[in-house]
């Protein structure tokens, strides 16, 4: 039993949902009690998806437990297939249904459906979201691109590839896939299938047609790439093009897998190298940075921080236990103790003791950093609605490197501003608890008491007679109004009072004014 306030990953069935929601024509029937439908809002709210995720929940209740929850599953499954007519149906159980052991796979098989059924075993009390996503993707690929009999023939390099791993709710996967496609196609390599994001089961059946695979996100696509290599003889490129150096290495690896000669590789250059070498970036030198996230983004962030921005990595960790080895290796390279943990309280302690000047983490580290008043940029899932920006904002490829430079450097004080802070420590408006001046717009959550006071005071738009008084009770009531609208409420009330010739603002006046001005 583990004490958990926030979690980095959901349960494995949420991973399975992400695969179903990534693909076309796949429906997931999940044996689960009411309430588990909360997961729908990850897609409809966080990702602003315009359709419901393709998931049917059985919604069993306590009173069903003694009787026939299996029958409820069969009805839900049959009706979902009739209603949604998918090409294939995934069946599985959430944590509660796992305990009642109804065997969704067997029940679905007994229905004799006219479409393929893929059964998922999702051990909720051992595994987590990314594992569930990787497992689901792997089960689907095995089902629709079955292994040929005998040993897979070795392949020669060729110019057709698949891209494996991007998924719904992935950190910037939506934009990364556009950027990587551009990069790969610029080499003259054809993309056969991108999966799971946007793929159908027919696309999965075509996976073996490619000469090699690109693993864009190992947390989800790694297991499948291994299996395809063993069973279909497809080699894979395991470098993720995050950062300027990794993008170059990725291009070289793809070229090699495709049999393209070095002199035929077009040059790819982001602005990051020059921006980093320009004198304005001098102030970045040796900034202590703490990094935590999924393994792929954390390791990539450490490389970029150290080699492309000149930071000092003072902490590196991941919640992805499956990739602990890779993170340990990277931590050894930077001489820091690796932190492999999904306990965000342990991560918080590590941040405090590392005393970083910048935190690169997930939304959870963003909250920790906010509390500690340390600048922060988000580099990894779990995702938040802000991680689906309206603008094009990849992390991978050429534009990804540009985006990373901006989003990691902007939270920091500009060079001279920091110096002035040290010089004029006691300036009441300009001290180390004040936000960097260029961030006042972007940091609403860090509104200080001073700002609150300023907002509450407001500026009088009309001449308020000096005789106008606020009764104590009304003043206290005014303070209950959120500070960001309090100034407006105060002004409206005073205007209302003076227009009505009142001398004292009572509670009644406050609410009379509220009613008067209500829209």
């Amino acid at each position, binding site marked *: *039993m*583990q*004490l*958990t*306030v*926030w*979690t980095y990953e*959901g*349960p494995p*069935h949420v991973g399975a949902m992400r695969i179903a929601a990534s693909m076309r024509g796949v429906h997931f029937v999940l044996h689960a*009690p*009411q*309430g*588990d*439908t*909360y*997961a*729908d*809002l*990850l897609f*409809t*709210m966080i990702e*602003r*998806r*315009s*359709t*419901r995720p393709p998931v*049917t929940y059985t*919604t*069993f*209740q*306590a009173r069903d*437990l003694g009787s026939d929850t299996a029958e*409820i599953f069969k*009805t*839900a499954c049959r009706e979902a297939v009739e*209603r949604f007519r998918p090409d294939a149906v995934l069946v599985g159980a*959430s*944590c*509660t249904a796992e*305990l*009642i052991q109804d065997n969704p796979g067997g029940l679905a098989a007994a229905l004799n459906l006219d479409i393929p059924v893929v059964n998922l075993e999702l*051990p*909720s*009390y*051992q595994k*987590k979201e990314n594992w569930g996503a990787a497992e689901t993707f792997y089960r689907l690929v095995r089902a629709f691109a079955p292994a040929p009999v005998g040993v897979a023939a070795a392949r020669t390099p060729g110019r057709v590839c698949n891209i494996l791993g991007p998924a719904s709710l992935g950190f910037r996967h939506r934009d990364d896939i556009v950027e990587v496609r551009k990069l790969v196609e610029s080499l003259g390599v054809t993309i056969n299938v991108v999966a799971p994001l946007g793929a159908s089961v027919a696309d999965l059946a075509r996976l073996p047609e490619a000469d090699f695979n690109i693993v864009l996100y190992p947390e989800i696509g790694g297991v499948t790439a291994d299996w395809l290599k063993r069973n279909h003889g497809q080699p894979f490129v395991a470098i993720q093009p995050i950062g300027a150096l990794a993008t170059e290495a990725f291009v070289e690896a793809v070229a090699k897998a495709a049999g393209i000669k070095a002199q035929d590789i077009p040059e790819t250059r982001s602005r990051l190298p020059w921006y980093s070498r320009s004198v304005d970036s001098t102030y970045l030198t040796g900034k202590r940075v703490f990094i935590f996230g999924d393994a792929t983004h954390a390791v990539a962030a450490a490389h970029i921080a150290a080699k492309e921005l000149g930071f000092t990595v003072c902490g590196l960790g991941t919640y992805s236990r499956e990739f602990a080895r890779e993170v340990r290796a990277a931590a050894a390279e930077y001489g820091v103790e690796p932190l492999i943990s999904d306990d965000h309280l342990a991560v918080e302690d590590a941040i405090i003791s590392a005393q970083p000047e910048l935190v690169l983490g997930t*939304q959870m580290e963003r*909250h920790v950093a*906010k509390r500690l008043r340390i600048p922060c940029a988000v580099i990894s899932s779990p995702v938040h*609605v802000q991680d689906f920006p309206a603008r094009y904002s990849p992390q991978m490829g050429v534009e990804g490197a540009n985006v990373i430079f901006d989003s990691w450097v902007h939270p920091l004080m500009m060079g001279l501003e920091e110096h002035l802070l040290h010089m004029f420590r006691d300036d009441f408006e300009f001290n180390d608890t004040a936000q960097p001046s260029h961030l006042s717009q972007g940091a609403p959550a860090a509104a200080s008491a001073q700002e609150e006071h300023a907002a509450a005071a407001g500026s009088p738009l009309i001449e308020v007679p000096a005789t106008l008084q606020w009764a104590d009770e009304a003043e206290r009531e005014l303070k*209950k109004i959120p500070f960001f609208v309090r100034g407006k409420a105060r002004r409206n009330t005073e205007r209302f009072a003076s227009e009505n010739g009142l001398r004292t603002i009572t509670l*009644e006046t406050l*609410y*009379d004014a*509220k*009613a*008067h001005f*209500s*829209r």
Partner: protein
Amino acid sequence: MNAPANLPGTAADCGPAQPLRQRGQHEVFCGLTSIIWLHRKMQDAFFLVVGSRTCAHLMQSAAGVMIFAEPRFATAVIDERDLAGMADVHEELDKVVAKLLSRRPDIRLLVLVGSCPSEVIKLDLAKAAERQGALHGPAVRFLHYSGSGIETTFTQGEDNFLAALVENLPAEPADAKPSLIIAGALADVVEDQFRRIFEALGLGPISFLPPRSSTALPHVGPNTRLLLAQPFLGEMAKTLERRGARHLMAPFPLGEEGTTAWLKAAADAFGIEPGRFAAITGPGRARAKLAVEKSRPTLEGKRIFFFPDSQLEPAMARFLHRELGCDIVEIGTPFLHRHHLAGEFELLPDNVFVSEGQDVDRQLDRCRAQKPDLVVCGMGLANPLEAEGIATKWSIELVFTPVQGYEQAGDLAELFVRPFARRERLKVSA
């Protein structure tokens, strides 16, 4: 098992007396979600869910829009060692509670909250609470209740919590004067407004449940009167009635009419003279009417469809129908407490269509066929319906916004105006 799909026009008999009941997918939160406001309301209480990773993920996803730096809730995540019997679950829970209390020494009330997995494995939280009480009491008190999805929907979690809380209320002294308990979490500002009105009426002593502090508990007995501020408190009301309290039936304090009727129920029970009642409530009533009237031009004649969410649906529908002239297409509600809602249905048309529970796909079929002007629904459905061109109002906002009482009647109306006003403004099409 499934009732035949009730198509529009054929189900006029699905009224409050005989709501449409279909079994299928429920697109609602479970009772754990109530913790999101309960942990803010009661400032020295901490809610520890004993459940799975799913419970923890639910709590942060449902609360995702308002992550608190240090929430007063957490999950004790059951893992395979607990299930395999390799670890004694009660000892594990001891460790978790000890860790929690050392981290948060300000906690005075620790509430153990049961979940679907803890219910299914029959983890005895009553026993656990008793054990913890022996270990950490009396400095910290322990309560337990179930917020599991197999038993509770969304606001029923608050009902179960309050039912557990009122079990522990002290008994009133033999010579106690009549007192009033107002039950159901309200925003602090709303509570203060009601308190002032009751004090002006000269009625009381009054107390609110849940209280802001776990130690400020009212006494209960035959001289206690109970007024429900929220419609989802069936279990809690039963528990208080068992202890002698008398429930004052009333519509709920939404809108001018509901608020007046609600206050009147209390005033009458305490023998407040009608002239005094009219004088005290008059200004508030006038303000509420004025504020609501401004929304009427937008909402009058609009056809509204409610998906089930918080059990507030019948009272919201009554407000929209009576004070804003809306037509109610369907009132979906997760659970229909006919007795507590009788006052609401008296004010609604006899043939209003009511459904209890949910089969979300069939309900969506009905909704699309009816083409309502506005759909009140949860966050899993809202964007998909908007993308289909149907205007929606997130029902969660009705629970998380101060909407009760005279001073909020205009705000409540405005919440329903906003989707229309927004469409009016936007010239971009998706």
